[in-house]
């Protein structure tokens, strides 16, 4: 049985036990009708999903445990945080460390019972009316994930760390994870998220995150994508913003074999700001695809987009940045940049800015570059005694610096520095 049929069958078997039955039913019909995207779809032209979906996956795995020590390798430990962890798709009490007086942080399945009004009001509401098959699939089949609710006038002092582990699985696994983040007026929160497989078996995750940023809120969301090389991830994030609020989503892609990020912002209130930044540093047989969309539906908003990619060996990168400025969205500022370093002849990047501007009093810019490391700069560093590899690494740090310097959690910045140094195979202690 192919994956699509298997998913539909699984839906039919569990349908009656799930909430949001109508939405789920509509969604599974979309999958049924349109199937998985292929390279014939404009949005998937450079990213071939076929090798991933033709694999045989189980759709769930039995419960398992991982040790606290292992958890610590993948989270920030020196910063006071709230940790919400899942193993094989199930919430893990043992690993989670939630101490919240002012905010709500719990598994989504629990929120459906305890905070049903909020969940009812928001679940699925940031998604487009006609989502693509993968978002539809998640809507139809997702059962678990994270629920974050930050009430009005509340600053969530501790960053929230979300970790999805997989381990001890008997066969390759396809997971649907779902996050719902609601940040009320004048509230603030910082969130990190990662998906981490510990097993030799392959894991394919199709994730949907909805973020609601109400008036005057401030949200920083950091995605750390450094999974094992046998993992694939499709990360769909939909952000809806009210007035005068700032939402930032930074994506750091180092691991995994196949990553597709679909990141969309809808600016519905004036004087708001959307920031999206990313560092991609990948090598042999890896693919990272960033598809972003900013919809300036109202006037006087700003969006800033900065993606940096470093591609070694036969790594493949894709960037597609769409900015939509609606006819009445005057005084829009939209900036987009995508800079890439190709370290070898067989590495590649397909980059496409896509600006659709229907208002006439706006400032929009975009730029993409593809290049190699500067020989003059390399020689300069080497002439100061810095070995070739370290010199290369230093220049790559420098290249990625604009993105890293914006990370607001110091320990996270350090951790990312370490991951980058490790990826580059150097031991240099430079802070950027």
């Amino acid at each position: 049985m192919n994956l699509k049929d298997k998913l539909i069958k699984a839906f039919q078997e569990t349908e009656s036990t799930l909430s949001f039955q109508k939405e789920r039913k509509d969604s599974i019909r979309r999958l049924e009708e349109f199937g998985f995207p292929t390279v014939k779809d404009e949005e998937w032209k450079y990213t071939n999903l076929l090798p991933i979906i033709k694999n045989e996956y189980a759709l769930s795995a039995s419960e398992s445990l991982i040790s606290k020590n292992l958890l610590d390798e993948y989270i920030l430990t020196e910063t006071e945080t709230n940790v919400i962890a899942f193993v094989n798709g199930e919430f893990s009490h043992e690993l989670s460390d939630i101490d919240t007086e002012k905010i709500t942080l719990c598994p989504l399945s629990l929120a459906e019972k305890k905070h049903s009004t909020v969940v009812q009001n928001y679940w699925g509401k940031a998604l487009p009316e006609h989502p693509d098959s993968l978002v539809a699939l998640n809507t139809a089949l997702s059962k678990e994930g994270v629920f974050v609710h930050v009430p009005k006038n509340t600053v969530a002092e501790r960053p929230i760390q979300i970790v999805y582990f997989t381990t001890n699985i008997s066969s390759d696994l396809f997971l649907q994870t779902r996050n719902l983040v609601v940040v009320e007026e004048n509230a603030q929160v910082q969130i990190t998220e990662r998906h981490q497989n510990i097993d030799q078996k392959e894991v394919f995750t199709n994730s949907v995150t909805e973020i609601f940023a109400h008036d005057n809120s401030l949200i920083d969301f950091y995605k750390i994508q450094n999974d094992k090389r046998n993992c694939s991830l499709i990360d769909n994030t939909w952000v809806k913003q009210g007035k005068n609020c700032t939402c930032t989503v930074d994506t750091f892609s180092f691991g995994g074999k196949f990553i597709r990020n679909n990141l969309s912002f809808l600016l519905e209130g004036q004087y708001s700001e959307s920031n999206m930044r990313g560092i991609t540093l990948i090598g042999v047989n890896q693919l990272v695809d960033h598809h972003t969309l900013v919809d300036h539906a109202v006037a006087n908003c700003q969006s800033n987009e900065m993606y940096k990619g470093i591609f070694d060996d036969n790594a493949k990168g894709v960037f597609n940045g769409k900015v939509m400025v609606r006819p009445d969205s005057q005084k829009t500022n939209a900036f987009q940049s995508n800079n890439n370093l190709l370290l070898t002849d067989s590495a590649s990047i397909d980059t496409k800015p896509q600006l659709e501007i229907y208002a006439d009093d706006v400032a929009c810019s975009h730029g993409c570059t593809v290049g190699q490391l500067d020989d003059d700069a390399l020689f300069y560093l080497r002439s100061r005694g810095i070995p070739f590899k370290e010199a290369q690494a230093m220049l790559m740090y420098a290249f990625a610096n604009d993105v890293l310097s914006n990370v607001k959690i110091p320990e996270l910045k350090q951790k990312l520095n370490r991951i980058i140094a490790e990826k580059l195979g150097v031991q240099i202690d430079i802070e950027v």
Partner: protein
Amino acid sequence: MLKINNLKASIEGNKILTGINLDVKPGEVHAIMGPNGSGKSTLSSVIAGREEYEVEDGTIDFDGESIMDLSPEERAHKGIFLSFQYPIEIPGVSVSNFLKTSLNESRKAQGLEPMPAGDLLKMMREKMELLEIKKGFLSRSLNQGFSGGEKKRNEIFQMAMLEPKLAILDETDSGLDIDALRIVANGVNKLKSKDNATVLITHYQRLLDYIVPDFVHVLYNGRIVKSGTKDLAHELEEKGYDWIIKEAEQL
């Protein structure tokens, strides 16, 4: 210390150096002068090991050993320092981190432990004072947004930190106003000792009023066509290069 014999080098098929002979001993200051395009910067790049240049013939020995097969970093570890005519801007790498990496990589190559942070900072402060560099300098991105004078001062600051045996200063005076020139020259003079040597590559005689050379060489068409004492530099200042070029072409 540095012994260059019949050095010939080219880049992308263009012959730039056509037979250089140079002998630099500890404690000496040599000035290499010459018109534009004579091969001055190529010579400094080739000594420092820039790989884009192809050495076709000749030898370069440093402290009695050939350095022809050594990478730029290995030459730096042996004590060769090149001050760049156009120092490269590297955003995101601070001056202090760059220096720390540079110094500790050299120490590592010599089998030494990294310098303790406190000692390093103390050393940086001392050398900064020498070059009249302000405090906030260390945390700035390397050369980014630096004025011409700041870039050159930063080069000599690095030299002061790395304490090379042989310093090659490529057009260190270009783009400097008179105050900056005085500070840079003063720094270079203070760092001179009987054990190290300096090669000044310059277009103008001006720098040589501040750093007095023991020998002056004139480079033309990739060869040293005339050598002399500091008086030669004065003669060049007065009469230009034409007479030397004529003399050289007659030979």
